[in-house]
C-alpha cells in the first residue's frame, strides 16, 4: 500500500520534470520590451489602489493618467502616443511582484512606474531587472537605488531619497536657530530610518541635541501622549519624518492645543492640503514642509498640472503623490524622446545618459550610470501655511 504511494509519487514527479524540461524554452534573458510599428508606447504602473497605502496610490494614479494626457496632447513621443496600464498591488509586495510580471510579459510594457511603497518596489525590482525593464520609483526608501543591489541598473528614483531629505530637514531647523530638537516619527521604513540617522548625527554633531523622540504606529488612534512627552522636553523645533497626513495633522493640532508652539519640520509626504484640514489653520502655521513645488509660485507647468488634475475630476493633494506620480510618467516620455530606439533598453540608456529631463519639479531630473537618484535635496523648496494655504516659507517665518 505504502509502496504504491511512493511509486505513484515518483512517477508523477518524473513525468512532470520531464514534461517541464522537454517543453521548456531556454531561459531567455529578456532584454526588455520594444514598441511595434504603429502601436502606442505602453507604460505600466503598479500602484497601491487599495490597502493601507491607498492614500498615496490613488492620487498617484490620477496624476500619472493626467501626465499621459499631457504628453499625448503635446505631440506624444516623436508622434507616438503613450498608453498607461495600471495594476493594483493592494499594498502587498507579493502582489506588486506579480503585477510587474504580468505587465511585462502579458502587456508588453517597456517601463513600469511604481510601486507606491518601498517594499513594493524592492519586490518588483528583481523581476523587472530580470526582464530588462526599467522601473521609475516614486519612493524615498533608501534601498531602492542602492548600487550594491543586482537590480540597480534598472531602478530609477523619481522622488527624493530619505538620505537627502532628512539631513535637509535637520539643516533647515538648525538654520532657523534650533538647538534642542525633538523627533516625532511613524513606525515604518521612513520613520525608523530617519530616527536612526538623526541619532547618528546627534552623536557626531555638537550643534544640536535630540531632547525627545516619540513614535506612533501607522494607524494610530491617538497621538496626544506623544505630543505631551515632546512638549515636556521643551524643544526648539520638532522634526516629523511622517507620511501619514492623519497622524501628522493630529499631532499638529494636539501640540498646538497643549501649548507646544515651535516650528515643526515635515518631510515631503506631509505636504498635502489634507493636513491643513486635519490640523486646523492655526496649528499649521508652525508647519515647515519641504516640497518640490513652491505653492506661492508654482512653475507655469506645475500650475497647469494641478488644473489638469482638477479638470479630470480629482482633488490635487498639493503634494508629492501628484508630483511624483506625474513626474514618473513625464520622465519616461522625455527620456524616450532622447532615446536611440523606442524600447526598454533605449529608455534605460537615455536615462543614464545624464541629460536633464524636464518635468513638473523645480529643477530637471538628471541620472547617471552611477547615480539613479534623479533629484537631490537642492531642488527642495520650503513652504509653510498661512490663512489655510501653503505659501513659501522664506519671507513668512
Amino acid at each position, binding site marked *: 500500500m505504502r509502496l504504491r504511494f511512493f511509486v505513484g509519487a515518483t512517477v508523477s514527479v518524473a513525468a512532470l520534470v520531464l514534461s517541464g524540461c522537454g517543453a521548456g524554452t531556454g531561459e531567455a534573458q529578456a532584454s526588455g520590451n520594444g514598441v511595434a510599428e504603429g502601436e502606442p508606447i505602453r507604460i505600466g504602473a503598479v500602484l497601491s489602489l*487599495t490597502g*493601507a497605502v*491607498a*492614500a*498615496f496610490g*490613488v*492620487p498617484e494614479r490620477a496624476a500619472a493618467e493626467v501626465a499621459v494626457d499631457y504628453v499625448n496632447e503635446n505631440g506624444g513621443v516623436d508622434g507616438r502616443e503613450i498608453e498607461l496600464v495600471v495594476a493594483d498591488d493592494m499594498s502587498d509586495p507579493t502582489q506588486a511582484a506579480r503585477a510587474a510580471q504580468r505587465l511585462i510579459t502579458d502587456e508588453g510594457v517597456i517601463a513600469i512606474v511604481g510601486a507606491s511603497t518601498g517594499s513594493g518596489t524592492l519586490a518588483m525590482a528583481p523581476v523587472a531587472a530580470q526582464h530588462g525593464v526599467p522601473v521609475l520609483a516614486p519612493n524615498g526608501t533608501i534601498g531602492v537605488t542602492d548600487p550594491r543591489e543586482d537590480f540597480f541598473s534598472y531602478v530609477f528614483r523619481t522622488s527624493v531619497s530619505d538620505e537627502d531629505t532628512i539631513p535637509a530637514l535637520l539643516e533647515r531647523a538648525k538654520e532657523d536657530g534650533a538647538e534642542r530638537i525633538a523627533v516625532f516619527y*511613524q*513606525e515604518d521604513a521612513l520613520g525608523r530610518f530617519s530616527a536612526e540617522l538623526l541619532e547618528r548625527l546627534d552623536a557626531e554633531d555638537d550643534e544640536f541635541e535630540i531632547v525627545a*523622540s*516619540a*513614535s*506612533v*504606529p501607522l*494607524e*494610530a*488612534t*491617538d*497621538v*496626544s*501622549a*506623544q505630543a*505631551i*512627552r515632546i512638549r*515636556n522636553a521643551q524643544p526648539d523645533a520638532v522634526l516629523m519624518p511622517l507620511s501619514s*497626513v*492623519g497622524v501628522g*495633522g*493630529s499631532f499638529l*493640532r*494636539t501640540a498646538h*492645543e*497643549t*501649548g507646544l508652539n515651535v516650528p515643526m519640520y515635515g518631510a515631503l509626504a506631509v505636504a498635502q492640503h*489634507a493636513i491643513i*484640514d*486635519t490640523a*486646523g489653520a492655526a496649528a499649521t502655521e508652525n508647519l515647515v514642509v519641504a516640497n518640490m513645488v513652491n505653492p506661492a509660485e508654482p512653475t507655469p507647468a506645475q500650475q497647469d498640472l494641478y488644473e489638469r488634475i482638477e479638470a479630470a475630476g480629482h*482633488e490635487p*493633494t498639493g503634494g508629492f503623490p501628484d508630483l511624483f506620480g506625474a513626474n514618473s510618467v513625464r520622465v519616461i516620455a522625455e527620456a524616450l524622446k532622447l532615446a536611440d530606439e523606442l524600447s526598454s533598453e533605449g529608455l534605460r540608456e537615455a536615462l543614464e545618459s545624464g541629460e536633464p529631463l524636464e518635468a513638473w519639479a523645480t529643477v530637471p531630473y538628471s541620472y547617471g550610470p552611477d547615480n539613479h537618484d534623479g533629484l537631490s535635496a537642492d531642488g527642495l523648496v520650503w513652504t509653510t501655511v498661512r490663512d489655510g494655504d501653503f505659501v513659501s516659507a522664506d519671507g513668512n517665518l
Partner: protein
Amino acid sequence: MSSLLNFLAIGVALGALYGLIATSMGLIWQSTKVLDLAVGGYAAVAGMVTAAVGFPWGALAGLAAGVAASLVMGVIFLALQRRGVTDQISAAFASIGLLFASTSFVLWYFGTDPRYVEFITGTWLLGDISFSRQGVFNVAVAFVVVGAVLWGMHRTPAGEVLRATAISPRNAQLIGVPVRRVQLSMFALSGLLAGGAGVLMVFTRGMSFGLGLTLTIAAFGAMIVFGVRGLVTALLGGLVIGVVEAVGAGYFPASVASMVPLIFIFAVLVSGRFKLEGARP
C-alpha cells in the same frame, strides 16, 4: 508625575471611545453569542459620513449610517441562523467579510483623505495637567449612553424582553416574543453605540478608511479585560485599554507600545478566562 497624570487623562478620553465600541461588541455577544468583528467598521463608516455631511447634522447622519451597517450584520446573522449555520466561527467570519466590505466602501465612496470635524476645542488646565475638552465630553457621553442602555435593559419592560431573549432565544420564542425582531434591534443598538464612538472620534482625532480593524482589535481587548460579564465591564475595560495605550505611548516607542494590547489579549485568551462554549475540558 504630571506627565503620568497627563497620560492618564489622555488614556481615559481615548478609552471612553474604545469602551463604547466594546460595549457595542458586548451587546451582540451577550444576546447572540456572535463575535461581531465589524464594529470598528461601523465606527469608521459613521465617522466618515459625519465628516461628509458636516456639522451639525452630520452627527445624526453618522449615527444612522452606523445603525444601517450593523443592521446589515443583523440580517446576515439571521440568514445564517436560518441556514442552520450556528457555529461561532462562521458568524465571526461573516463579520470579517462585512469589515472588509465596509472598509472598501469608505475608501471607494469617501476617498483616501482622513477627515476631521471640529466640535469642541481647547483644553482645561488643572495645575500641570491638561484635559482636552472634547475628551471630557467623550467620557461624559460614554458613561451617560451606557448608563441609559443599562437602565433601559433593566428597568423597562422592553429591556426585560431583550434580556430574556438573550438568555434563551428558544424560550422567548415559545412565549411569543418576536425573537428575530428583538435580535435585529440589538444589532441596531450596537450600531448606534459603535457609530456614536465613530462620530466622537471624528470630532476628536479624525477618521480614515483604515481605522476599522485597529478599533475592532482595541474593542475586543477592552471587552475581555474583566471577563465578558456585562456592559459596564466592557466600558471600564475600554478605559483600561486606553490608559495602557496612552501611558505606553508616552513612555515607550510605538513599536513596543503596539505590542502591549496584543500581548495582553493573548495572555487573557490563553489563561482561559474568556469563557465560551466548546472549550475543551
